[in-house]
């Protein structure tokens, strides 16, 4: 008995030592050379997204030259909202700056956890801002319906646009030879011709996965058909005649002219379809659009062009920018605001534009050499019309409810209107429990 217990302990100790040695070896590999820099520390939280790559690669080094010591904490999208909101709301002070997805601003605003950047010295009324972008930084919003409890509050600038992004049309110029298709009918018609000619397999591709993906794909269609999501009193009106028409078009015609697996597609698959040459047109954010010219990422380099989204009644795209906020509990608050001031200056924005990201100041769009040919098109789309998602803290839940119903209809290939009705009722019920009316 004694023997075996000694052996036992020895083998466990051996195991433990071996483990410790192995991991120490691995760890020393990862220990960075301690930075002697006594820079101004700024802890930035961001979610992994290709749209931030130019910022990471080109702007952070510039910030370091300015004396900022940037700690860039990247995490997966599905985790960041919860993490950052918990951090801000509990005052935990783990971040100095969040690079939020703009639909999150109302939630942070309503909880009153972000610094007043206007008071901090950032001028929100500067004409150089892209109007629709800077509007998103105010809570409560300067225009449009306000959530209950905030009707009389003074709009405060709690976030500033960080990297612009919005949907534009990417299309095959060998199929749509006359330039970007102007209407949805043209997209389908010319797309079918392209299929017949063997140039593409499907006129369109989009994301069908339930939740944010499908709602984002449907939204520009909805807007272009003339739909409105909520009325002034937050009643859901997306199941209006126009809304239903857009939903029927989406789950019917569009699905029939898209790859068969589209109901399961997310960004990766829809990107693969357009970059691989199978699809004729796609409405997408810049992340995948930016891959269009890289022969290493696409099989049809040179055949993809960008344009304004097609219209039914109007040609409105959805906006979804990276927008930055500073939590009240930020450990290095002054540094953070100083960094933001430097970052949103026209000069830095011009550099961002050179690096290939969509900037947030108008002057930066007009530079001589934008890093990417999408940038001028983005400005065109902005001027043609680009709307953010409704400014409500409960958008996440609303989007989820709508996404579930839309996805079901998409799977069935019909019933878009009915799906909207069901979703509208669910949204109404949910908002009632949340005290909206």
């Amino acid at each position: 008995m004694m023997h075996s217990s000694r052996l036992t302990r020895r083998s466990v100790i051996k195991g433990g030592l071996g483990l410790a040695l192995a991991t120490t070896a691995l760890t020393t590999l990862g220990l960075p050379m301690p930075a002697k820099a006594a820079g101004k520390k700024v802890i930035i939280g961001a979610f992994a997204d290709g749209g931030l790559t130019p910022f990471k690669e080109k702007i952070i080094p510039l910030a370091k030259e300015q004396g900022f010591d940037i700690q860039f904490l990247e995490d997966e999208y599905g985790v960041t909202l919860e993490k950052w909101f918990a951090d801000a709301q509990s005052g935990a002070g783990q971040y100095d700056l969040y690079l939020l997805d703009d639909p999150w601003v109302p939630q942070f605003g309503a909880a009153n956890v972000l610094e007043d950047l206007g008071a901090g010295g950032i001028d929100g009324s500067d004409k150089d801002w892209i109007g629709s972008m800077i509007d998103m930084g105010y809570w409560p919003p300067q225009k449009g319906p306000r959530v209950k409890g905030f009707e009389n509050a003074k709009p405060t600038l709690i976030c500033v646009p960080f990297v612009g992004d919005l949907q534009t049309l990417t299309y095959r110029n060998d199929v749509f030879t006359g330039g970007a298709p102007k209407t949805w009918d043209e997209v389908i018609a010319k797309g079918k011709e392209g299929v017949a000619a063997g140039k593409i397999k499907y006129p369109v591709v989009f994301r069908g996965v339930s939740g944010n993906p499908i709602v984002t794909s449907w939204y520009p269609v909805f807007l272009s058909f003339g739909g409105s999501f909520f009325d002034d009193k937050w009643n859901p009106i997306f199941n209006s005649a126009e809304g239903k028409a857009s939903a029927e078009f989406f789950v019917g015609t569009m699905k029939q002219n898209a790859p068969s697996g589209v109901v399961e597609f997310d960004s990766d698959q829809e990107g693969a379809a357009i970059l691989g040459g199978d699809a004729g047109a796609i409405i997408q954010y810049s992340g995948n659009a930016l891959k269009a010219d890289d022969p290493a990422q696409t099989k049809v380099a040179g055949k993809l062009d960008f344009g304004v989204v097609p219209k039914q009644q109007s040609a409105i795209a959805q906006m979804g920018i990276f927008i930055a906020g500073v939590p009240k509990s930020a450990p290095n608050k002054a540094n953070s605001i100083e960094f933001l001031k430097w970052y949103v200056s026209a000069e830095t924005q011009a550099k961002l534009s050179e690096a290939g990201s969509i900037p947030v100041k108008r002057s930066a769009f007009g530079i001589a050499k934008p890093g990417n040919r999408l940038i001028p098109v983005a400005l065109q789309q902005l001027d043609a019309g680009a709307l953010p998602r409704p400014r409500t803290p409960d958008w996440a839940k609303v989007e989820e409810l709508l996404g579930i119903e839309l996805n079901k209809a998409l799977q069935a290939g019909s019933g878009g209107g009915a799906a909207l009705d069901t979703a509208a009722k669910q949204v109404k019920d949910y908002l009632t429990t949340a005290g909206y009316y």
Partner: protein
Amino acid sequence: MNTRLARILTTIFVLAVVLLPIYWLVSTSLKSNREITQEGTLYPHVPTLDNYVRLFTEKQFGSYLTNSLVVTFFSVSIALAVGAAGAYAIARFRLPFAAERKVGLFLLTLRIIPPVVILIPVYLLMLSLGLLDSWLGLIATYTAFNVTFCVWMMESFFREIPVDLEEAAMVDGDSRFGAFRRITLPLAAPGLAATAIFAVLVTFNEFLFALALTATPRAMTMPRGTATLIGRIDTDWASMSAAGVIGALPIVFFALLVQRHLVRGLTMGAVK
């Protein structure tokens, strides 16, 4: 002969089912992202260790490993010590109102409740104590979890040891605690080892609370760190798979080394 063949085939089949996914993980981790998404090769045509290097130079995996090691070591040691003491008390003493049995049952109940139930309150507790994103916060949480089942497991190990040996020692002049230390503990060593191994496994692999309680590489553990790469947009398959390999390596290595005791611990609860 027929059964021999059937045996061999079954063994191969089972081995394949277990090892094929692991092969795929490792092979993907040695490819570049381009090869993974564009070519879909069955084995790395252009093998590269880049993904692994990047994990440590860009993605902070060294920190995650260190944090996991430290947190696991302390949570398990403290829980073992505290749990052994508590288990001994429950196994050996008859307290008024059968208190010791009630305590045992209480701890068992806590073990059964899915941890997710107390996720938010624990988060708020750690917040109010200023222990978010810290080793201490994680250690406190994990130790508490481990104590519940350490007591449960070790109680039966202690019960197996005859009282007479302790009493003999006490007759010879030892105090009760001394007898515990000098006689009982060594005899229970295999059980302790099994419990320790089980605790290491559970603690190292824990994800949910690491997700809620940490935010920066200062305290993020391996599983939490690995999760930063699971993105569904522009998935970085290469890094993700390398992270998977690195994440699994320590614990698999450890488990294989201490197999025997691991098996003993896992089956002990069921077969008594």
